[in-house]
């Protein structure tokens, strides 16, 4: 049987068979490379190094009867923090309306900087002491105090006077440590995906109170209640400053607190959030107590002498369903200074 060779090409001996064979080789290499890529492809992306479960948020601690337009708000005027917070809460039914016997309360303060309380860059220790005391009086079994200041947390709590204030009233200070962090992926989040958060401090907690100062903020325009939640984030969170309104909007969805206490007794009206000069501060004489963090910040904007248009994240958070930017819908109780 004779072999039927493909007809030689007229020029150079390159036959149809040669072409098909080479095409086959090329296809095989392509398929092999593609297959290798597919085999090695990680559809999930880099996974969290910690084996901890990825959370979808930090929890909803709001009270069912105070949600949406049923939320409560009081604005107490005056310069004595213990008095204004007491009178404001009284107008809403007392701390007992929010904290019941046996509750384990987590108070999130703003302890971002190692600065003395007089400079107004952190939650004022007098306010922390007053609120923690009211929680105990309402029957709380324990009061925990926390924040995640990036630079040397213990020094921040110590210099700001918050450590001493917590100790004074028997509240327990929780400093951030690796074991307390757990990744969160916010279901509707664009930025908060597998991001480490201080989730461990919520273990066993039944109520959450945010204690925040009213401050100007160089990047966000204002740092108040919603920005305070930023302190639950770990990692190199400063990268979020490139989309500060976006991240604060997502933070508003990350946690639903029981109560928000926004301290506008003295507001940092310029050079925030660090300030430094006493001339950055202004006596504004208002303590805002609200169940809705967005509404609380909407009042804070007015305390700073600004408009909602100046602080875009408030309307963005409201649009995302985190609360009401029109705080009047909560029918705030205004308590004039004595």
């Amino acid at each position, binding site marked *: 049987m004779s072999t039927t060779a493909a007809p030689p090409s007229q020029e*150079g001996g*390159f036959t149809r068979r040669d072409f098909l064979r080479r095409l086959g080789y090329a296809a095989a290499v*392509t398929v092999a490379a593609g297959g290798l890529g597919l085999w090695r492809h990680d559809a999930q992306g880099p996974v969290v190094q910690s084996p901890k479960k990825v959370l979808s948020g930090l929890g909803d601690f709001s009270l069912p009867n105070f949600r949406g337009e049923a939320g409560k708000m009081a604005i107490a005027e005056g310069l004595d923090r213990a008095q204004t917070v007491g009178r404001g809460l009284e107008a809403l039914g007392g701390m007992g309306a929010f904290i019941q016997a046996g509750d384990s309360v987590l108070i999130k303060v703003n302890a971002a900087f190692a600065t003395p309380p007089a400079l107004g860059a952190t939650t004022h220790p007098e306010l922390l002491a007053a609120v923690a005391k009211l929680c105990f009086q309402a029957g709380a079994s324990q009061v925990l105090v926390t924040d995640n200041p990036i*630079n040397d947390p213990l020094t921040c709590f110590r210099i700001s006077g918050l450590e001493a204030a917590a100790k004074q009233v028997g509240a327990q200070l929780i400093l951030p440590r690796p074991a307390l962090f757990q990744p969160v992926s916010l279901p509707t989040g664009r930025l908060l995906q597998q991001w480490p958060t201080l989730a461990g401090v919520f273990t066993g907690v039944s109520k959450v109170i945010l204690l925040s100062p009213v401050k100007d903020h160089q*990047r*966000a325009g204002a740092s108040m209640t919603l920005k305070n939640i930023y302190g639950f984030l770990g*990692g190199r969170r400063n990268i979020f400053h490139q989309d500060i309104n976006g991240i604060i909007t997502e933070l508003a969805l990350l946690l639903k607190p029981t109560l928000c206490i926004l301290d506008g007794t003295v507001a940092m009206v310029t050079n925030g959030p660090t300030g430094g000069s006493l001339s950055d501060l202004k006596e504004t004489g208002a303590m805002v107590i609200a169940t809705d963090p967005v509404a609380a910040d909407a009042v804070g904007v007015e305390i700073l002498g600004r408009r909602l248009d100046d602080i875009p994240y408030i309307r963005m958070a409201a649009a995302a369903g985190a609360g009401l930017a029109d705080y009047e819908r909560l029918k705030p109780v205004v308590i004039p200074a004595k």
Partner: protein
Amino acid sequence: MPAKRTRPVSTAQQLTGLIILATLGLILVWLLVQQSRFNPAVTALQTPRSTAVAKAGPAASPQATALVPQVAGFTPLGPVQNFGPENLSDKIDGKAELYLSAGFRTLAVQSFTLTQPAGAYLEVFLYDMGEPQNAYAVFSSQRRPGSTGLSFRPNAYATTNALFFTAGNFYVEMILDRAVPDVAAVLEPFTTALVANLPAAAEGGNPAALFPQRGLVADSVRLQAADAFGLAGFNNVYTAEYSVAGAQATAFLAQRPDAAQAAAEARRYQEFLQANGYRAVQNPTIPENITILTLEDFYEAIVVVEQTLAGVHEAPSLAAALDLAKTIQEALTRKR
């Protein structure tokens, strides 16, 4: 030696080659799209801080430690802490971008307790901004209105509890935890020793002298190092507040290497304003070499005199914008 191709490639071969190239191109595009959607959480988890708790600042460098003086009556509460561009936000989260955009290099911080007033807490921030102009930018942009100017440095002022100044490439903040009757006197021994430690460097010119003096609000000159008025790349722009035509307005001034660059940047600024809804004002009282634009109740003016681009920002009336623009133009023309 490989055989040379002796006949043209067939259409089928060409088509096959093109399909393979197109496929590779599509893969490349897909890879680029995926890269652009990079999740920053990966960085957060892969850094040494993956456990999410940051460590204290890096160890103090001998150089920075040497710059912060040890002075009797000022007892250090800890070692000097150093921060660089990568971790400045650890110390001043929320304000780091202000410094980074102005050329920040390093920050040395140390806290002290004072014997006089007894127990007072002092924190000293020593920012190396790389250039005197950068130091001036962060100094001026945070200047507290109504503060007391000090004469020991060309750029220095005090408030009731703090002292702020520039020294060459450095911007210094000295912050007490309380108001004192004369903060400059309280801190004087430390300030003198600190300034003596800092490397000698020229301060640069007096920025206030760049502006016409009529109507200029004292101590209102600022330097915006980057992205002035929201325009990306509109850098190194001096601003000053004026009382003019019964209103307040902001003048601005930026010096560029040559007239062509100044003119090009003026066009870019005008286009930026128009893209944001401003429209040119046509009025016979407006000189040809001054451009006025308006949006709602705000007026902007743009002037170019040789290599200087100048103008008026957010004047509340046409009269105020025009008056100030003419004043600036005349002053710049006289200086030619």
